[in-house]
């Protein structure tokens, strides 16, 4: 049960991480905030993205033997990136949930 908790935490943090990485790009930022004048605060988004990527790796290691955790983590990156790509193509506004207004560059 504890292992399942760690794995769920790993899934969530990988998704968040990939979402923030995607929002670093101006083109994706415009998809999520079409009417917004400024651009993304790339420093903050990259910092959060990297931090949560590390956190997801820690969660995987807490759940499984290191050899298994490495595989889970790599595969989760693929799932998370694909999920974010699909969200951006179909429901980009959903990514606003992980990106409050202060994530924007005042530009």
């Amino acid at each position, binding site marked *: 049960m504890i292992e399942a908790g760690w794995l769920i935490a790993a899934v969530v943090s990988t998704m968040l991480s990939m979402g923030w990485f995607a929002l670093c790009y101006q083109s994706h930022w415009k998809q999520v905030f079409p009417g917004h004048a400024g651009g993304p605060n790339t420093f903050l988004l990259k910092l959060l993205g990297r931090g949560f990527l590390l956190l997801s790796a820690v969660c995987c290691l807490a759940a499984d033997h290191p050899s298994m955790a490495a595989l*889970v983590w790599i595969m989760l990156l693929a799932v998370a990136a694909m999920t974010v790509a699909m969200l951006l193509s179909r429901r980009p506004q959903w990514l606003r949930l992980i990106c409050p207004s202060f994530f924007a560059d005042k530009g």
Partner: protein
Amino acid sequence: MFNSFRMSMGWVHTWLGLVLGFVLMICFFFGALSVFDREIDRWAIPDTRFEPQPMPSFDEVLKPVFDELKPHPTDMAATQQRVIGDLPDPDTMPLKSLYAYTTHRDPVLRIGGEFGIPNEPKDPADDHLHVHGWATVNPTTGETLSDSALKIGSDWFYPMHFNLHLRWNMLGYWIVGVAALVLLAALVTGVIIHRKLFREFFTFRPWKHVLRSSLDLHNVTGVVALPFHFFFAFTALVIFATNIYLPLSHTTLKPLHEQHEKLEAERTGLPHEESGEAAPLASVDAMVAEAKRRWAERDMPGEVGYLFMDHIGDENSYVSIYRAGSDRVALVGEGIHFKASTGEVIREEPPRSVVASIDEFLTGLHLQHFEHWMLRWLYVFGGLLGAICIATGFILFVEKRKARHAKAGSQGSRIVDAMAVTTVTGMVIAAVSMLVANRILPADLAGKGQWEQTVFWWAWGLAFLHAAWRSSPVAKARVNPAWREQSWVLAALSLLAVVMNWVTTGDHLIKTLFTDTYWAVAGVDLSLIATALIAMLVARKLGAKATETVKPKRGKSAQHNKQVNAYD
């Protein structure tokens, strides 16, 4: 020939990918199915729908089964071809070695053994002559289950992904090996072509023209699962490298083979030859208990995955017990070897060297015997991403050229499109048709497995004929209606398979999900329903597109044109 290195890499990527892409589709799709091969077996053989069991007692359950084991008629016939004179009566052949193998997903136990024969080989270099026998056992009762039913998951879909069922001169293994090598080359050339690798992590624009949107999907599925694609192509080559692709031990080093075995026996203390003195068998259950105690002492308690006994009935007989690797990536291991007549430990295998550990990890990550359901589904996801990547590659190839080919009167795009339909929807139709046949044909039909295989090949062949027959619009720069029509067929067949499972076994989804939960069957049924829904969605979308007036669109940006042209 090309203006730039990148353009030349684009050529390599396109043409190698196209030629071997059809094989890679098979590898990825059936590889993804193989992740749940045992579960598909349970769906296809209703008599085996019970919970997985650990290795049963040898003394009480397995020993009587091995006492009854006989040489298999198939192997009798094969061995007869290799020896001088007639083989003796199978009932008189002594069992020389035996094995039992199970995993955490197997409700049934696979057992087998080698029977000694006095015949001389026709080819003097043909050593280790035996006749093999094998059986499938219900580990709770020791009852031998009929082995005539085809294990569709583990004996058909699984081998399909690594040997294509082309066994003549191991041709299938070689084709798949070349395809794996080409995949590695395609990955490297793909990375070179795409300069904006990380941006393409998240870019998919389905509203754009089919050329642009299929390129997006090709890029995103190739890039996000790049480590998966690389590792699976690489480990596939590693697994077969020593046995098939670079079989040094069977060729150049063959004269040393016998000597190596003797030296290995001296080093490990496990006898290479029989002594000629008969000896009784001590309790194997006691040996299993001792092995488990030693594993627990090493802080890795576990169950038995593989049990092997050699030189049966002789003073030199020994029993090898290997731990099931359910909790880690590596396969069975931590072997402990016992003297069969006394039960004393001959050898406990030391921890693996670094090289052996890496080899075990690479092999284990591909063969995935571990008990980690989330990772297993992630593997399915990775395999399907690979299949999507290749399928969109085909679409890209056709869309890029069909207008030009139509103008020039060439049939090139038409042929590639027909092949693409055959290896995308046609392949899935073949797999699902086999499941439908499995549920429709009577369980006691003689040669039922052979009929199922016939249905598989016929369904695939018909899908090809249909795709080719309907492909004429591609020669006029239009869409092949076979995509849409085969999607409808796939949807219908998938739903039919679920319904037929219910009708013939009574195992409907409410039962397998809620009232008498059995995830193996529920999972296959749910996957079939998901397949049907996706196929219906695709068919409807293609139908809607077919009614639209198609206007060729020009790429807006120079970058767009540059990237698409890189595939030329």
